[in-house]
């Protein structure tokens, strides 16, 4: 019943979509298939599942608005189980068997790097749901990244620590995936902000207890703690240790599921992110309304990233022509795009174009995100 209601709601909102033509003709002909490799199970499922919801919402919205050049869009979703090996196998299948026209994913950085090794040689348009990672990604000019580069994530957290908290001594707790990338950047740029990283502690993705690492951070006497992880665990451990200092979190742990899993530990945590669904920016309001109507809950950043990925590909393919070759679509992708998450410029060297001013800051109060007045300079 819930699915029926969601479908009915989607039909309604699809017809009144702001960016798509209303009363569009139903798409006909052979579907244009794009692939999406998402981490729906495994340690990064907390990211992959919201992304899947955003992808499916966008697929329906595109089709209800007439499809791509009159042809229906089909998104074939595959689960990589948060594992790069599986992601490569799935990508092989999507490219060779399903003959996809573009690929979205993956939800985790290592899998994204792995599948980029398949998409890049054949110039298959690839929209990654992560920020640009290791050096090899800089050479992959047909892989667009929908999230901020890791250095920008680091700068967003440090800017808040310095300007809003006046902190000079900061501790860092991070996981071994995305967290590692941000931590590397934190080490590289902290001095520019006059901040000393008094203790940096790493733990493995999916760790269920990081008390030992959190205790070391506490022992170093930081004035604030930056947590970069796709997990609720470090927040609970920091809370249990009663550190009594502000906690700054990254986008990786900003989902409602993680916040619920944090329990009391979520209270007061500040997130450097992009979408505060309780108080959306004007260009985000329509997406939030659509998502809430479809799923009966508010979206966060990863739902928006999934939605943006499909819309970006659909828009570019419609402009380049449904039969345009890979190289033409890749070229067409490299230009500005107004997404829900941010305003992108894929012609920028980081293939994202997100700026520090694109970040917004929120604080959890009573299980809800409240937009903070703080603006990064």
């Amino acid at each position, binding site marked *: 019943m819930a699915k029926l209601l969601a479908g009915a709601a989607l039909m309604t909102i699809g017809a009144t979509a702001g960016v798509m033509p209303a009363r569009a003709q139903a798409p006909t002909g052979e579907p244009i298939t794009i692939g999406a490799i998402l981490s729906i199970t495994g340690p990064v499922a907390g990211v992959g599942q919201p992304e899947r919801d955003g992808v499916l919402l966008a697929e329906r919205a595109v089709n209800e608005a007439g499809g791509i050049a009159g042809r229906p869009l089909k998104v074939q979703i595959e689960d990589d189980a948060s594992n790069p090996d599986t992601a*490569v196998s799935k990508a*092989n299948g999507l490219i060779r068997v399903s003959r996809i026209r573009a690929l979205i994913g993956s939800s985790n950085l290592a899998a994204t790097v792995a599948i980029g090794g398949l998409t890049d040689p054949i110039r298959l348009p690839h929209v990654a749901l992560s920020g640009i*990672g290791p050096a090899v990604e800089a050479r992959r000019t047909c892989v667009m990244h929908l999230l901020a580069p890791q250095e920008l994530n680091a700068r967003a957290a440090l800017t808040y620590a310095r300007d809003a908290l006046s902190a000079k001594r900061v501790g860092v707790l991070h996981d071994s995936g995305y967290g590692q990338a941000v931590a590397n950047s934190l080490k590289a740029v902290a001095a520019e902000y006059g901040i000393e990283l008094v203790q940096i502690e790493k733990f493995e993705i999916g760790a269920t207890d990081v008390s030992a690492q959190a205790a070391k951070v506490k022992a170093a006497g930081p004035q604030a703690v930056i947590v970069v992880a796709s997990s609720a665990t470090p927040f609970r451990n920091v809370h249990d240790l009663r550190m009594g200092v502000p906690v700054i979190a990254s986008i990786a742990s900003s989902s409602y599921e993680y916040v619920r899993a944090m329990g009391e530990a979520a209270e007061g945590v500040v997130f450097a992110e992009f979408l505060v669904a309780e108080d959306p920016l004007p260009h985000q309001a329509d997406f939030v309304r659509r998502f809430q109507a479809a799923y009966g809950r508010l979206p966060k950043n990863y739902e928006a990233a999934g939605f943006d990925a499909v819309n970006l590909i659909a828009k570019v393919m419609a402009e380049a022509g449904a039969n345009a070759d890979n190289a033409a679509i890749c070229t067409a992708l490299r230009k500005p795009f107004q997404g829900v998450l941010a305003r992108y410029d894929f012609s920028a060297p980081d293939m994202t174009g997100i700026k520090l001013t694109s970040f917004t800051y929120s604080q959890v109060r009573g299980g809800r995100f409240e937009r903070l007045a703080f603006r990064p300079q």
Partner: protein
Amino acid sequence: MTHTSLRMLALAACLAVGLALPFVAPLPLVDRLVFAAIYGIAGLGVGLLLGQCGILNLAQALFYGIGAYATAYASVELGWPPAAGFAAGLAVSGALAFAIGWPTLRLNGYFLALATLALGIAGHELFFEWDWLTGGTFGIGGIPPIRLAGLPFNTPETFYYIAWAVFLAALFLARNLIASRNGLAMQAMRDAPDAAAVLGIDMHRLKAKMFVVSAMLGAVAGSLFAHYVGFVSVQSFGVERSIQFLLIPVVGGARSLVGMAVGAIFIALVPELLSHFGEIHHVLFGLALVAVVIICPDGIAGLWQGLRARIAAPRTAEASTKEPNHAA
């Protein structure tokens, strides 16, 4: 038709089907079969230790990782050809297995199993921490495919032949090893250690040798994996991968080489088949494993051998009852 002729015929049929598979099977199946061969090589190392020496090895992912990283580093950072990467992996894993195995293999039973588990965890931590060498979580990408006579083996269909050729060669060598003097010594050590000691078998030395062989098989599998996937990261070499390798002889049958091939196919294919059931597929795979272990405690090969024995038993009884009449 004699029993030997039937076996040869069955073998030829299996070979023909195997050779034709990449042309007729869907690509995802061929891909999983490539992984079956790669995992099978590493699982064979674990199976030889378990089935022939009675040693439970939970550190195989460490040697698998060494092979993968050696190949990745040699080909990407140093620009060496694939053969040099394979050789580096074999040398490093063999030397490390000897250095670690010599003192560790004095332990027995659960203590030895726990020691190998600790070794596997320590190895994973080192892969994780030494990101200057391994790339940590981001791994090492851009590993070139194996080329033979200028042809790249960069698709599941082409790599299938390399992976299965290596796996079959490893099975053949393992068969010879089991039938050799060392193999008989291993079986004596496994079944009657006191008697083996009385016979003058240096059990510690034999265990260390087998541990090195097992590690080198793990390294070969790791090198093949690196060339096939083109990317290696620490996520592929955790303890769960060692458990996966251990499951191959457990499911297939630790004392049967054919069983290990069956176990490898089971481990590589069943999770993929079950993934169509959605997020519950991990639970279903766990249940499938429990079912296999309960129904076939000696592995799938053990079940088959049991069935053959049951079929053969009445015939033998019938023959023996007829014998006195002939004599009369």
